[in-house]
């Protein structure tokens, strides 16, 4: 049994070894990691080789050297290179694994061997992950040394990236394997998988946008409701004061202003609640759909969540908080409503919280269920098909 499995893996390695794209991709991984090493950070800002680039927001005053390199690793290295460009190269290299397996002349030979169809298919599927496994393993190992040598932090936790990226790729590759089996065409499998990936990514962007909009309306509705409560209370106080001081013009003006604002807010509220409810319903529907599909972005985000803690990011966040305040919600000098900046901060905090609250079980669990479903369908087809 092991003889067969080993033979299939060794054959997959030979197939990769014979592809120039594999070595080009591996070379590019090394270049990307080495490019990290050229960038540094000190108390004055960033450095590129020995040149100083004065960016106050990025200096060791706000972010530690270790966090800076981990941030580069997760954002540029993992998100951009490994899970985007290298993934495309990986798909190009491995989209043909299943179509080649089921091609005329090749499938007859392997099916005539004493190996079960399901085992054969799943083993071939796993060999399809070999490309990205080797890529991410080399990339992470090199990054480990760069972060250790340049950032001064020897972080073994970095290697969590390897299983997470393999997991991420396996979601997409399960679709590729199924499509490759159905169409028997490498090109069709590749293009349709990329289309699926793009659509899945679009759904993620849609969901994120809806979350922002929904949270925005939730915070606004809460702000208006609080505002109404406080204005009502203040109006009552002013009315009492107006009775005590009937000649106080300022109080009279304030009462008029408060009544006007109350009227405005009261008119605004149903619309805002309507928008909030509508967005909540739409977001719920999109989330339900998303639950059924693989969470590629969130899976990769888990790596960042584990590697970089909230405390690590505090420096940068505080720095951002010191930026000039944007326009306020109202120009009324007695306005007690939340400012736009406060709303924005609240929305950001809630989104951050909502995102971080999404459990690993939901992110990985539902994605793995999707992957298992794809593979189960593929195995069912492969098991029943006549070649």
């Amino acid at each position, binding site marked *: 049994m092991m003889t067969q499995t080993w033979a299939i893996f060794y054959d997959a390695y030979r197939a990769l070894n014979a592809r120039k794209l594999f070595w080009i991709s591996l070379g590019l991984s090394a270049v990307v990691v080495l490019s990290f090493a050229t960038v540094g950070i000190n108390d004055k800002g960033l450095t590129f080789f020995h040149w100083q680039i004065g960016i106050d927001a990025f200096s060791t005053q706000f972010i530690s050297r270790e966090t800076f390199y981990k941030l580069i690793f997760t954002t540029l290295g993992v998100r951009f290179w490994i899970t985007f460009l290298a993934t495309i190269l990986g798909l190009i290299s491995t989209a043909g694994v299943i179509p080649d397996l089921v091609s005329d002349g090749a499938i*007859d030979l392997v099916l005539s061997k004493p190996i079960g169809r399901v085992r054969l298919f799943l083993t071939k599927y796993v060999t399809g992950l070999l490309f990205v496994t080797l890529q991410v393993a080399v990339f992470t190992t090199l990054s480990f040394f760069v972060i250790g040598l340049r950032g001064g932090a020897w972080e073994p936790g970095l290697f969590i990236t390897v299983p997470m990226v393999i997991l991420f790729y396996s979601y997409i590759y399960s679709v590729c394997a199924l499509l490759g089996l159905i169409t028997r065409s490498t090109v069709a499998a590749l293009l349709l998988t990329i289309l699926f990936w793009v659509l899945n990514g679009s759904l993620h962007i849609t969901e994120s946008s809806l979350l922002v909009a929904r949270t925005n309306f939730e915070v606004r509705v809460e702000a208006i409701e609080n505002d109404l409560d406080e204005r009502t209370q203040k109006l009552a106080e002013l009315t009492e004061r107006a009775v005590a001081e009937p000649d106080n013009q300022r109080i009279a003006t304030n009462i008029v202003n408060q009544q006007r604002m109350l009227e405005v807010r009261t008119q605004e509220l149903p619309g805002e609640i309507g928008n909030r409810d509508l967005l909540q319903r739409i977001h719920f529907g999109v989330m339900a759909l998303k639950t059924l599909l693989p969470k590629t972005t969130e899976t990769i985000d888990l790596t960042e969540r584990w590697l970089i803690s909230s405390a690590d990011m505090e420096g940068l966040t505080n720095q951002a908080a010191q930026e000039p305040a944007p326009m306020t919600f109202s120009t009324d000098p007695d306005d007690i409503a939340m400012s736009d900046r406060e709303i924005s901060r609240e929305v950001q905090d809630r989104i951050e919280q909502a995102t971080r609250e999404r459990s690993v079980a939901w992110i990985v669990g539902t994605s793995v269920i999707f992957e298992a479903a794809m593979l189960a369908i593929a195995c069912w087809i492969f098991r029943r098909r006549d070649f």
Partner: protein
Amino acid sequence: MKPTQNGDDLVIDLARVEKTFKGRVRALDDVQMRVHRGEVFGLLGPNGAGKSTLVKILLTIVRPSRCQGRMLGEAVGDKSVLSRVGYLPEHLRFPQYLTGGQSLEYSAALSNVPRRERKQRREALLERVGMTRWANKKVGGYSKGMRQRLGVAQALMNDPDLVFLDEPTDGLDPVGRRDVRRLLVELREEGKTVFINSHLLNELEAVCDRVAILAQGRLVLQGTMDELTAGQERYTIELASAPAPAALAAAREAAEQAGVSLEIKGDVVQLGVDELNHAQLVMDALRSQRAVIKSARPTRPSLEDLFMRAIIDPHTGEELLPGAASPGSKQETSINGEEAP
């Protein structure tokens, strides 16, 4: 090894095999077949007759609609038995990035052959098919004939008890064909059972112990050449020229006296008997009328004759169309040599 008729000696014993593809194309209909241990068995038939489908069912590449039968003592479809089976597909395609030697090792590893044995057999088989020089070259650079030789070698890498060869001489030059014929004889001498699918009737006739003919998914003939031609022996007398009427009359009279049938086609006289003393009477009659005899020999139908006869529709008298039987059609078949199903 001389095949015996003992049931335990059967390598393949199919009681009933049927396959209907999507679209209700009936590729195989109630096929019964027996292959004995240590024999070279030839399966023939026109294109689309179902030969490859039958082999693929035995090798689990195609799922049967119905299959009652055993191969190497196990039920057809049992994967474990395939470690004792070798197979050369009709259009075998090795991965282009492998060398000839690597291809053989890969194939053997899939059959669970231990590493040490793989190495040994690889060298021996490359030598056997004349490919040692090319062992370390990529398969992508091989000619069709070289790939075919390599394919034959890979079919033997697991030292199988039963070997299926689908068109083994396809793409081979005359020398290659002769080598394959020799190999088949050697395999038989080693006690292996060889199952060949081929269109090349002369080659099959030369090496096969037994043959079967499939037409439109049905088995129409099965048996040894002796069994299949039993009762069809002839004595053929070839004359220098077409016989004169007097010679003809004399020959007919002699045949009648000997109690044998006589058929004359141009300058060839055929007697429905293979005994020389009966033929001698007719030849004396012909010579008495000054007919010149060029040759006289006992003959029997060739495999080609049997094949052509087998693919004739008994109802219409015309050749069966290539391909599978149309749904619902029924064709009467006669199996010589073994009992009709």
